[in-house]
């Protein structure tokens, strides 16, 4: 027995730094996950119990909060609004940006360089600088207050950085491929969509992931553009819901959990891709 304790102590000594590292990292994890944990915990309590103690476990699981939040937020409608806006925007951005990025990279004319420069330098325009006029512009174009119009706005705002990414990536694709396709009788579009686009897959995934995270979680643009509660996105609906039940934490927390669930599911499913997408996006940026 003593001997075993001794070896254990030796082991501990040997791995002292490592153990310290683990303890520290666990503490950081606690900081990272505790807010989510406490939110889920309290979302199952009635309001009175939250007021009594926020740390205690709920005595019974109350799903009333969830039922009310789901109904009042009009969850299924706003969920599909968000999904629709996100899908359409991301598809639009991927197609528009890949086409533009590809041609801008291949075409060596002055016009091409100029256009590329315009796109890239526009990355410096903060959204908040144009938001006021954008509201007016959207009104003029009749694309405000519609789940069809918002994706167009996202394409316009979000297309510059992906163009930059595609522009760099296309350089790594040999030109011979296109020449071969031309000889086989493909026109420009066929060449792009049949030969080039499939080759862009890794960067497509990167672009799609970055845009999905941005658009799904975006708040200000929907706030400015969507005036009809029928068209609300998930985040917008949660904000409105929160305003309504300012002190009733039980309901707000249930709404927060509901809003987080889709994101966390997507994160768990595609974690590897997301991490890769972010690192490539960052390194290229």
């Amino acid at each position, binding site marked *: 027995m003593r001997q075993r304790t001794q070896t254990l102590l030796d082991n501990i000594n040997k791995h002292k730094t490592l153990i310290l590292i683990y303890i520290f990292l666990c503490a950081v994890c606690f900081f990272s996950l505790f807010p989510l944990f406490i939110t889920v915990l309290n979302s199952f309590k009635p309001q009175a119990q939250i007021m009594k103690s926020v740390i205690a476990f709920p005595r019974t699981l109350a799903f009333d909060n969830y039922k009310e939040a789901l109904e009042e937020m009009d969850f299924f409608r706003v969920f599909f609004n968000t*999904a*629709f806006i996100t899908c359409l925007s991301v598809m639009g951005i991927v197609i528009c940006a890949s086409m533009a990025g590809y041609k801008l990279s291949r075409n060596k004319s002055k016009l091409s360089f100029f256009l590329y420069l315009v796109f890239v330098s526009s990355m410096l325009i903060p959204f908040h600088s144009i938001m006021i006029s954008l509201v007016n512009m959207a009104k003029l174009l009749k694309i405000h207050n519609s*789940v*069809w119009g918002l994706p167009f706005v996202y394409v316009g705002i979000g297309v510059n950085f992906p163009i930059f990414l595609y522009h760099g990536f296309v350089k790594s694709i040999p030109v011979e491929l296109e020449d071969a396709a031309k000889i086989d009788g493909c026109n420009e579009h066929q060449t792009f969509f049949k030969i080039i686009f499939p080759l862009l897959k890794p960067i497509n995934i990167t672009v799609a992931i970055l845009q999905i995270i941005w658009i799904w979680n975006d708040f200000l643009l929907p706030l400015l553009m969507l005036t009809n*509660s029928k068209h609300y996105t998930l985040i917008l609906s949660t904000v*409105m819901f929160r*305003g309504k039940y*300012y002190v009733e934490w039980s309901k707000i927390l249930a709404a927060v959990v509901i809003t987080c669930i889709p994101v966390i599911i997507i994160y768990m499913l595609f974690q590897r891709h997301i991490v890769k997408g972010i690192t490539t996006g960052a390194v290229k940026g």
Partner: protein
Amino acid sequence: MKKLLLVFTTTLLFFSLLTSCEGGPAGPKQVELKVFIDQPRFRKQYTAYLDRFAEKYKKEKGVEVTYNLEMPDTNAGQLLRTRFASEEGIDIYSCHAMNDLPEYTKAGYAEDLSSQPFVNKLYDNIKPVVTVDGKIRAVPLESLFWGIVYNKKIFNQLNIKPALTVSELKENIAKIKAAGYIPFLLAYKDQWIPQLLLPLTVGGFLNSEYPDFIDNMNKGRGSFADLKEFFTIMDLVNANGNKRPLDIDANLGNVEFASGKYAMYVQGPWMAQGFLEQDENFEFGVAPLPLNDNPETAQINIAVSTCLCVNPKSENKEVALALINYILDENDSSAFYESLKFNPLAKVHKFETYPWVNTAMTYVEQGKGYIDPKIPQPVKDESGAVFQSYYLKDMSQADIINALDKAWKSSLK
């Protein structure tokens, strides 16, 4: 993985298409009114009343009315302006009769309602408040007599009366403290609550010692520094309140005040419903706020805050006007106003006034009441923020005066 992604996106897309197409083409017998009301705390009451109108309208005209009712909680003014800007076709909207109505009328967003039947039902002393450029522009909802609210139980128990001078107020505060209560509830998280001190202070001085104040300000030659005792009452209230007022918002304020720990609250009786929701036996009165030792400064503020307007650009004006008239309906309006705890303001209103209105009325009947002073909205907004900073000692009195003067000046531009 790739297939899964594909299936996932297509399903999402498919469902989204379904939901977005679900409405279908609307027949001529169906009208959707876009209604914007800045009183989310009354959602239940408004929804019920609007539904009753829809029922009635369908019976009478055979037109089905549905609503897109928007009741924002924060930044309502900003939202309404973006709604106007987007020409989304808001049909009916609520606004502040004193602060916003003139501006909206000037910009062409308030229909002339002078010839509507409801006008004849209004009490004559209410009409001027919703009149801009000689025409009735809105149907008034909430008329108010306000100052501070006080907890009647505590006042009766200590055998004290609402003070009319600062010295009396100090005596009251001492007694309240001695009995273990907190003299003032401070709920300063929402900026509009500290802001309330502005119309009360300006209104009280304007109608007693500084009658030219607003006139001077509007001519660009006045300053808040002219009001010598501007900070007296604010300092007294702040010094005798609870701790951490910036963590308490309006809703929590209702909970706190109804808990019975506080004797007074600089707040209007528009919160009545909120207090009574917490404790239905809660008894409170409305009293004026004294500003110095001159009892003339302590007066009740009389205001119409919320009113409903029709947008002249509405595509469903006929229905919108019918709804506006229904607000003062011969049979239903009385119960509606009563359920909202609003004061009666038209001949069709036949319900008892509330006890707190009666306490306010006793002051008004003695001539201690004035019409809410016309302070530009930017100044009010500014005051909410700077009074928070003043409480936190982030800003000095001189800073506050500068900020308010500047806000007033730029509102004249």
